[in-house]
């Protein structure tokens, strides 16, 4: 027997126990957090809460405007960021002839992804809120910049997995570049676009810092177009306002519970879509 290994041996069970402890603690913390929020939030969740606007006169708290604002801002952001991000990815992967330029853009996108969101808020306020006014539109445009790298990088990774032989096959039949991209390349990178979308929706739902600066705090239920030009709080911003400024912890936890359920739903959606594409690729 080698003597070198024996003094290390007592460590083995210890490492085992410690790692088990770490894993257990992680699971426990997650479950506690989810449980605590649902327990605190669900009792306050009522049809009245989610279907009315708040009123100081009748001392009612309602989060319908915040729900609508969240929906509006998510849709608007996707509407802008999808063509922009997918377009950029297509250009970089399919068209760009200068590797150096493409590399520089990719590097910039990576850097963009790592910037703290409050900085986006600050810049968004100066760029968009100063020109469009504090509004959901200003908030959405800020979120567009924030989510651009996510959509772009996911699409790009997906584009790179489309076999070159598909492109050659289509070119060989006399198809032009754009037709090849539209009919053969893009349909096969749907997975990346969808993944990017799901990740982005998750990020948009969870974003507060950037929106505090740009989209404002109003709780008025508006139609889509009025909402875009008016200030409005999303769920996360409303949560902050209710908890920090009005002491309405019931409403805050109710919102937290809703956000939590949405986050779980998005995770589920991501898993389901991955499964769907796996099956589609296999068949």
């Amino acid at each position, binding site marked *: 027997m080698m003597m070198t290994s024996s003094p290390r041996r007592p460590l083995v069970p210890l490492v085992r126990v410690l790692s088990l402890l770490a894993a257990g603690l992680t699971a426990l913390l997650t479950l506690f957090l989810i449980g605590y929020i649902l327990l605190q939030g669900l009792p306050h969740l009522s049809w009245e809460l989610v279907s009315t606007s708040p009123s100081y006169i009748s001392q009612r708290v309602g989060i319908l405007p915040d729900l609508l604002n969240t929906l509006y801002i998510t849709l608007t952001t996707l509407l802008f960021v999808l063509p922009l991000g997918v377009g950029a990815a297509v250009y970089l992967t399919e068209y760009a002839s200068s590797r150096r330029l493409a590399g520089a853009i990719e590097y910039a996108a990576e850097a963009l992804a790592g910037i703290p969101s409050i900085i986006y808020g600050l810049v968004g306020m100066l760029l968009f809120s100063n020109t469009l006014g504090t509004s959901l539109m200003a908030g959405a445009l800020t979120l567009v910049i924030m989510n651009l790298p996510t959509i772009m990088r996911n699409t790009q990774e997906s584009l790179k997995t489309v076999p070159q*032989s598909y492109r*050659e*096959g*289509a*070119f*060989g039949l*006399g*198809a*032009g570049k754009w037709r090849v991209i539209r009919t053969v390349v893009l349909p096969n990178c749907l997975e990346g676009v969808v993944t990017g979308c799901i990740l982005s929706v998750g990020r948009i739902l969870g974003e507060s810092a950037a929106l505090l600066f740009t989209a404002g705090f109003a709780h008025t239920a508006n139609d889509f177009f009025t909402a875009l030009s008016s200030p409005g709080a999303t769920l996360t911003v409303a949560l902050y306002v209710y908890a920090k400024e009005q002491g309405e912890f019931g409403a805050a936890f109710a919102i937290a519970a809703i956000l939590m359920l949405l986050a779980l739903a998005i995770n589920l959606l991501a898993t389901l879509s991955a499964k769907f594409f796996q099956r589609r690729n296999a068949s």
Partner: protein
Amino acid sequence: MNQPVITVQDLNLWYGQSQALRSVSIQIPDRAITALIGPSGCGKSTFLKTLDRMNDLIPSVRVEGQVLYQGQDIFQTDVNQLRREIGMVFQKPNPFPMSIYDNVAYGPRTHGTRDKKTLDQLVERALRDAAIWDEVKDRLKKNALSLSGGQQQRLCIARALAVQPRVLLMDEPTSALDPISTSRIEDLVLSLKEHYAIVMVTHNMQQALRVSDQTAFFLLGELIEFGETGTLFSQPRDKRTEDYITGRFG
């Protein structure tokens, strides 16, 4: 020898700094099968890809010399029109991940055929000509990737035929297939030469002997010898051709 459909004059090609083709001159006859043979890296695939300008996809490629298709300089004609007339079948079967029908209809649709009836007819004829109609006629809507390798390759041939080309380029079309599929493709190629000029790269000497009318032997980017297949294999004029076909290198 039939009328030439493609005439190549003094063709030189570089990948960046390295020269892949050296002063190649050759005439590809119509309605006949021309085999390109030679060891790996000899330039035969590069030569094939020059004929329908697939090399355009590689940025570092530079070409000198003249390639005439039906008397027209291919570097001056519209590349999409050229590739419609000069079809390509690749080494590995590469059907698109869509239905069998859509694969074959892809070319005609690309070139503006929208009418359902016309498309149906074109698809059926192409699949019949590629000797795969009976196997797939009941499942045209099924994904093409569900077919076997040999069937996929015949589907790719059908896909190339559907745009009604004049010339068919084949880059080792059977190298990824089993012997039975290979012999079916060979039979198919033989039947196709009634209507098309076929240029086929192959690593397999027997295959060249079995199917081709003319054979061109490439070595290190040069066309060493070109002539009637039977003569080239039985009485090669060049020592290097003889060495290669008798298996002394390659």
